[in-house]
């Protein structure tokens, strides 16, 4: 090999060695970049895994407190170097942002945009604040708020902060704030999608739980309302059944009383005829024995008749001091659901002057119920029902009378029906018994009172029940 060839070879080697050095330097750069990318990929993977874990945990959380504690706890792990994580929520009663987690400190922010939490609440999306921005935001807070805030974190003051609003469908209801330590991790803009994702997850979970709680409350209210409705219906049905039963019994009683009254005259004539015959007989007349039998048997008939007649009257033991206003209120209460369903507005104007009267309360309640239900039937498209009590006295020395007016704004009673209203078995209803008003009138009569009716076609009807305050 010549000297020239050797030099060329040495030159080539030098070039190769330079190329090799450059290649090594480049390889080191690529290697470092690859390591960085791997590191970022690992970090990203860790964050995604953490987000997925949070998703899974939120899915099985059953109350809002659990969710907020979980979010705050996981946020500290998701963003290494976090000194403290705070979740604030709107308290509608205080009209303020209130710290919900961690729960060992009490921080209430009443001014809009106050502090980092207030700014996060007003922000449309996640924000990163660093250095002076954080200090400026903290200057909004009072000394007590600063004290509470600093007590809740390891490093004070924070150097950086990640903020995100809690929002669902455009509605904001809280904020999430992460505080970075002084010498520790400095948050990076690439953290923003993660803090917003965490805030959105928390918001959806909290909103769902709130909706669930609200739905459960509505369900409970509905169940309660249905129960009350069923109870009211049952009470009304029972009352109506009792009314019908009483009306049937009363019809039988009225028939008995009517028969009893008609028999009284012939019985009186027969018994006393025998008595007069007996006066003319000799003491030892054999007919006296038969007259005695006839007298005894007629006496027996008289007792049977008395029992039949008394069947239709309230027994004295059932008469008691009765408050008419209370009876009316009880009756209105009984039909409250029926009135609501029939779209009828009830109004009671009950005079405080009405005294207690001796009466058969159950029977009078049946009278009021019957007339009120009739009024409801007269207003199939709804209307107004007005109850009024008055104390009437013609002159200062006259006895007083209680007037109970039950007025409806219904279709009115045709003139041709009015004379028959109180006749038994007279009805204009498809399923009516025709006994309600008949027995009502009878009950009122038994109390020494009467019922008056005023009615105008398509204007309404007023039933006025007049009851003497002093009755037998």
């Amino acid at each position, binding site marked *: 090999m010549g000297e020239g060839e050797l030099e060329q070879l040495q030159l080539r080697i030098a070039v190769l060695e330079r190329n090799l050095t450059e290649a090594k330097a480049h390889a080191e750069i690529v290697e470092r970049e690859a390591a960085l990318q791997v590191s970022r990929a690992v970090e990203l993977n860790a964050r995604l895994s953490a987000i997925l874990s949070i998703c899974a945990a939120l899915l099985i959380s059953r109350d809002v407190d659990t969710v907020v504690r979980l979010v705050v706890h996981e946020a500290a792990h998701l963003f290494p170097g976090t000194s403290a994580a705070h979740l604030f929520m709107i308290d509608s009663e205080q009209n303020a942002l209130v710290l919900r987690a961690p729960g060992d400190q009490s921080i209430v922010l009443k001014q809009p945009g106050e502090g980092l939490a207030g700014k996060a609440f007003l922000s449309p999306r996640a924000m990163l604040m660093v250095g002076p921005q954080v200090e400026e935001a903290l200057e909004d807070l009072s000394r007590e708020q600063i004290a509470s805030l600093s007590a809740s974190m390891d490093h004070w003051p924070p150097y950086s902060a990640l903020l995100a609003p809690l929002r669902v469908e455009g509605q904001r209801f809280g904020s999430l704030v992460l505080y970075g330590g002084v010498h520790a991790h400095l948050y990076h803009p690439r953290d923003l999608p993660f803090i917003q994702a965490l805030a959105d997850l928390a918001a959806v979970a909290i909103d769902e739980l709130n909706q669930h709680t609200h739905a459960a409350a509505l369900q409970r209210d509905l169940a309660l309302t249905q129960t009350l409705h069923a109870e009211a219906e049952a009470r009304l049905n029972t009352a109506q059944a009792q009314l019908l039963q009483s009306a049937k019994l009363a019809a039988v009683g009225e028939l008995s009383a*009517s028969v009893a009254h008609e028999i*009284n*005259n*012939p019985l*009186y004539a027969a018994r*006393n005829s025998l008595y*007069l015959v007996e006066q003319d007989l000799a003491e030892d007349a054999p007919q006296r024995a038969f007259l005695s039998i006839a007298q005894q048997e007629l006496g027996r008939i008289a007792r049977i008749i008395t029992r039949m*007649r008394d069947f239709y009257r309230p027994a004295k033991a059932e008469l008691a001091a009765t408050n008419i206003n209370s009876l009316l209120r009880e009756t209105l209460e009984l039909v409250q659901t029926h009135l609501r369903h029939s779209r009828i507005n009830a109004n009671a104007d009950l005079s405080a002057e009405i005294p207690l009267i001796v009466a058969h309360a159950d029977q009078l309640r049946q009278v009021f119920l019957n007339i009120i239900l009739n009024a409801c039937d007269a207003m199939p498209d709804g209307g107004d029902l007005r109850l009024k009590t008055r104390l009437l006295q013609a002159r200062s020395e006259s*006895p007083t009378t209680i007037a109970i007016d039950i007025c409806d704004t219904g279709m009115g009673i045709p003139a041709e029906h009015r004379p028959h209203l109180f006749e038994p078995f007279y009805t204009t209803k498809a399923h009516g018994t025709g006994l309600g008003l008949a027995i009502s009138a009878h009950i009122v009569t*038994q109390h020494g009172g009467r019922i008056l009716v005023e009615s105008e076609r398509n204007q309404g009807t007023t039933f006025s029940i007049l009851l003497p305050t002093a009755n037998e």
Partner: protein
Amino acid sequence: MPARQIQISDDDPAAALITQRGLQSLLGNAYNVIVAPTPNAAWLACAHGNVDLLIVDPGAGSGSASALVRAMHAFRPTTPIFVLTAYDTPGLRAKMRDLGVKYYAAKPIDFKDLLPLVTTALRTTPLPEAFPLRLNAHCSR
């Protein structure tokens, strides 16, 4: 001394006849017990002022008998009225009490129980010149 007069007004003719015969028999000739054929006839007799007791049955739907009681209360308030009825109810009792009726009995009543009530009512009849004009008599059963 002329016989005292008792007028009877009753829709039921048999009952009226028995009341008349019984009272006439039991009270004797000192009393003249008369059945008025109608409430109006009874009122005319009472209006003449020589009736000492009116016995009336304001039966079911007997508006004229009630009108008779009302007229007596207004124009002959001192003539005692005895309601002897087959249609006894608390309502009728209250109504009669409001009309000023003091004496009330329900049929079927035996003469031996009726007689003391009638004689009590007759004893309350004052002398004609002592008649006060009273429109609101108290009622007792």
